[in-house]
């Protein structure tokens, strides 16, 4: 209305408008908030972080330079490894279901299997001595650095220690609870 713009007075009419608007907003918020909370998944019962012992088939000190051994997270109970670092699609705290133990230049590394591009499982290319991602063609050196894009970040490390069994390692992981 013309006069209300000329004299911005707080009338009964504006008050009622605002009052109704706040009431309706409050109603919508009261309805939506619990729905949003409900959508947020709670961790399943029995989920807990722990070190997962995985066998790699031969003692660590017998690994030769350029050896890479794939290992999987245990299925019962269903578990996954926790990445210690990572860029691109990977990040510290993200989960991986498999990994590689690699020895390059006398150093042993343990990598999560996920490509840093979009998280596909990389595979060992024994001829070229590289990790190749079948999805979008990314390739990595055995030390985890990028050999070929589209991946822009190196492979993620897993935090590990030598297990009491010389052919096994303890890797940081989580029991998923389902």
């Amino acid at each position, binding site marked *: 209305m013309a006069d209300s713009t000329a004299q911005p007075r707080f009338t009964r009419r504006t008050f009622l408008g605002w009052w109704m608007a706040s009431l309706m907003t409050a109603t919508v918020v009261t309805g939506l908030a619990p729905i949003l909370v409900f959508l947020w998944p709670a961790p399943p019962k029995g989920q807990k972080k722990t070190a997962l012992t995985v066998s790699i088939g031969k003692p660590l000190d017998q690994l030769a330079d350029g050896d890479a051994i794939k290992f999987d997270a245990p299925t019962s109970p269903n578990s996954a490894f926790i990445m210690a670092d990572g860029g691109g699609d990977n990040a510290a705290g993200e989960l991986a279901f498999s990994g590689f133990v690699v020895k390059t230049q006398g150093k042993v590394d343990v990598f999560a299997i996920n490509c840093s591009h979009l998280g*596909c499982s990389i*595979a060992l290319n024994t001829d070229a001595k590289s990790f190749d991602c079948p999805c*979008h*063609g990314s390739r990595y050196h055995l030390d985890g650095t990028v050999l070929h894009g589209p991946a822009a970040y190196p492979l993620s490390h897993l935090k590990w220690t030598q297990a009491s069994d010389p052919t096994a390692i303890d890797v940081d992981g989580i029991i998923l609870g389902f």
Partner: protein
Amino acid sequence: MDETTRKDGPGAATAATVIPIIEVDSHGGHVLEPEWKRLPIGPDHILYPVVVGLALFPILMGAAGHHLADDMPDEDTHPFFPDHFWPYPIIAVVMLVTVGLLAFFVQKDLQLEVPADPRAVTVPRPDWYFLFLFQFLKLGPELIMSLVIPPVVFVVFLLWPFIDAIGGPKVARRMGWKTWPVPGRNFITGAGYVIFLAIIALLTLWALAGPQFCLPWIINSPVCGA
């Protein structure tokens, strides 16, 4: 019966004596519409319940507005039922038979792989209609190719009628055209669309050509199929 006795609403209809109509010879003889608008199947026809079922659909879909056909001479139009309707049951049966035959003869596409296991090493490949997007992802920085360009294309499609209506006449003026035709008659929007489809088709073919088929590209060269 006099046409003036035709009245809308329940009140008119309860004057029950005005419905003596059973004229088997003509169009069932109901008097709800003048002769030229009559349905071939009237309320006393054995198929009338079917017709009512069919009509429920357009009735549910709301009142018809003022249509082009209302301003056209009768010989340039035809009634929806049965003249316009009859192909659709046939189309429906043909389609049902087609998918049934596909279901019978091409069962290999429906065979399951092994149950999902996140530890399995496989190459995820989307269904054919997402292959172009899958291939497109490889052609540039991930974020731009996945979360910038496709949504932008989607929004352009969504707002296309307005883009066409606002931008089109301006382009037409610059080109010296009198009007801005529909894409089917418009070199710019028509060709643009064909190019868009061609890009999608090429990306799909590229993906279908498989991982051995690689082409040099400005980024991440060479880029291979899926």
